[in-house]
């Protein structure tokens, strides 16, 4: 079985075969010997044979990521976002849009109330600079710029209630 899997912005070519009771997983030419069994529909128990002859035991739990083919893998205390590529090359990770080029639309992540607008059209902003503060779940949440740019439009005013997905600010 052959797959293309992206993790950490690197696309890996993966080939799996079963041999002598374990799986041989070759990732970009490096072969790993792994025993895998399913714990529940979302969880695998892996025993990874290491080079020194060790048998490392890990549980890996998978949950759907934010886009088709995206998977969050909970393993070794981390949540690692992974993208499974299908043949036509569709299904790039959603985050790509946010950190790449092109205008950035800052959306309300949940229903709430705009308590502060920190920028106005024409302002130059730097990456991670606060743009709008939305109150939801009893907390104030500052929405920030993903990268440097200039505010093109502010679509909300202080005190306004917004639904999830409402465009708050446009940065370009």
């Amino acid at each position, binding site marked *: 079985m052959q797959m293309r899997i992206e993790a950490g912005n690197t696309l890996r070519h993966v080939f799996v075969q079963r041999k002598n009771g374990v799986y041989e997983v070759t990732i970009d030419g490096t072969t790993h010997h792994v025993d895998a069994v399913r714990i529940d529909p979302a969880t695998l128990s892996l025993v990874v044979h290491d080079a020194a002859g060790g048998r490392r035991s890990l549980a890996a739990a998978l949950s759907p990521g934010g886009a088709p083919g995206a998977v969050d893998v909970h393993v070794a205390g981390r949540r690692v976002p992974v993208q499974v590529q299908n043949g036509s090359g569709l299904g790039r990770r959603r985050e790509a849009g946010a950190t790449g080029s092109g205008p950035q639309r800052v959306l309300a992540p949940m*229903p709430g109330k705009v308590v502060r607008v920190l920028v106005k059209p024409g302002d130059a902003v730097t990456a991670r600079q606060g743009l709008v503060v939305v109150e939801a779940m009893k907390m104030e949440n500052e929405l920030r710029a993903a990268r440097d740019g200039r505010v093109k439009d502010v679509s909300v005013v202080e005190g306004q209630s917004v639904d999830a997905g409402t465009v708050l600010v446009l940065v370009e």
Partner: protein
Amino acid sequence: MPITKVLIANRGEIAVRIIRACRDMGIATVAVYSDCDRAALHVRLADEAWPVGPNPPRESYLRIDTILDVARQSGADAVHPGYGFLAENEDFAAACRDAGLVFIGPSPEAITLMGSKTAARQAAIKAGVPVVPGTEEPLGDDVPDAEVLRIAEGIGYPLMLKAVAGGGGKGMRMVATPDELPGALRAARSEAGSAFGDSAVYLERRILSPRHIEVQLLGDHHGTVLPFVERECSIQRRHQKVIEESPSLAVSPALRRAMTSDAAAVARTVGYTNAGTIEFLLDEDGSYYFLEMNTRLQVEHPITEMVTGVDLVRWQIRIARGERLTLDPETLLIPRGHAVECRIYAEDPDSNFMPSPGRILGLRVPHGPGVRDDSGTYEGGEVPIYYDPMISKLITWGEDRDHALARMRRALAEYEVRGIKTTIPFFLWVLEDADFQASRFDTTFIDRKLGARQGAPLQAIDADHETLAVLAVALDQVTRTPAAARPAASRSLWTSRARHDALR
């Protein structure tokens, strides 16, 4: 006042906590729920459950009329408010009393009194307990700058200008030197005037590196007030406690005697009954100051339970039904071992702690020696957007602080929540910090440490993690046919599983 059925005017983990205490005592429980909480854990665990309205708290959990109506219809004879919502609402406490219901908490009068910052401050002064040095009388518009400068000289710099009617940081200014005072005074008065319609301010010394130390109290209706060993609550993010522990490594036995007896003195001065907490600021030089009183059960009450063995909710109920406090005062002040609590929130610590509501697709809860998980949710459960996003309190106990912290690391590593993001990676990061491990911190610790990271991810993903993730995804695809991945001995059981699935 016999209590046979308690209405719990709350939701989430604290409602579950109270239901369990009632069940231990053979007392029936009535849950209330808003629309989105119909499938919540507290509803399922209670003996009875009643709807109280739409999702916004103001239309459900804060509706005094509806909740009293449910109490009447269900035949409840007592009400427990938990924390938050109506817990410190004197009107609710009074309405319960007027309706002939036992309110499991302090009197409405005590709630009113200690709810006012200046009245609480005066109660502390009356009890002979130190408050942060400052002006006792309001400084109105008519007090000239020179007079304010003279008073400030007596208090010392840096100091805080605060609005008498204040709250939420409005009308508050830090003043580092005398020449900053006139400008700050003008600004604070103007802000206070427009925000509260009252421009009066007062001065208070600024404590530079305070620890937040608090003392749990129980008071019965027979005049007994008992303090408990302190809780260390300095680990706060934006003034919200996130990790608490008991005891505090900054509190010596002598200091403990002084602080706990002062705390009890404040409570006695106001005739306080049931559970309450006195909050102090502890300065680097060992001096401490009354800050405020919380007239309810605290979120972090379990750490006190772990080091004293006292079930605080059970005692709240016993006190409310008129029992005497028969606990040994001495044992309450001698902690047995050490306890730590992490408040697990549905927030993404790597995105500025943005709330992360939604469905919990997978949940594995830690177990084993020294671990307690006070959760309000379950696998498949929903974290709604309308309420505080705390999903669980993870508490560990150990023979000493290092042991308790080691168990916390173990428990956090076992904890798995899928479908939403949580603050678990944040806690694992804090637990790795050498200053935290050495108990070298004050209330500004977390904000300083987080600020220094400049948004770097709390739990870095390295090449090994990526390889493991790729292996997992590849093998998940390969083993999608369940029978392929199951050990041989299990296969026969897939028949019954299949039948089970067919039934769904």
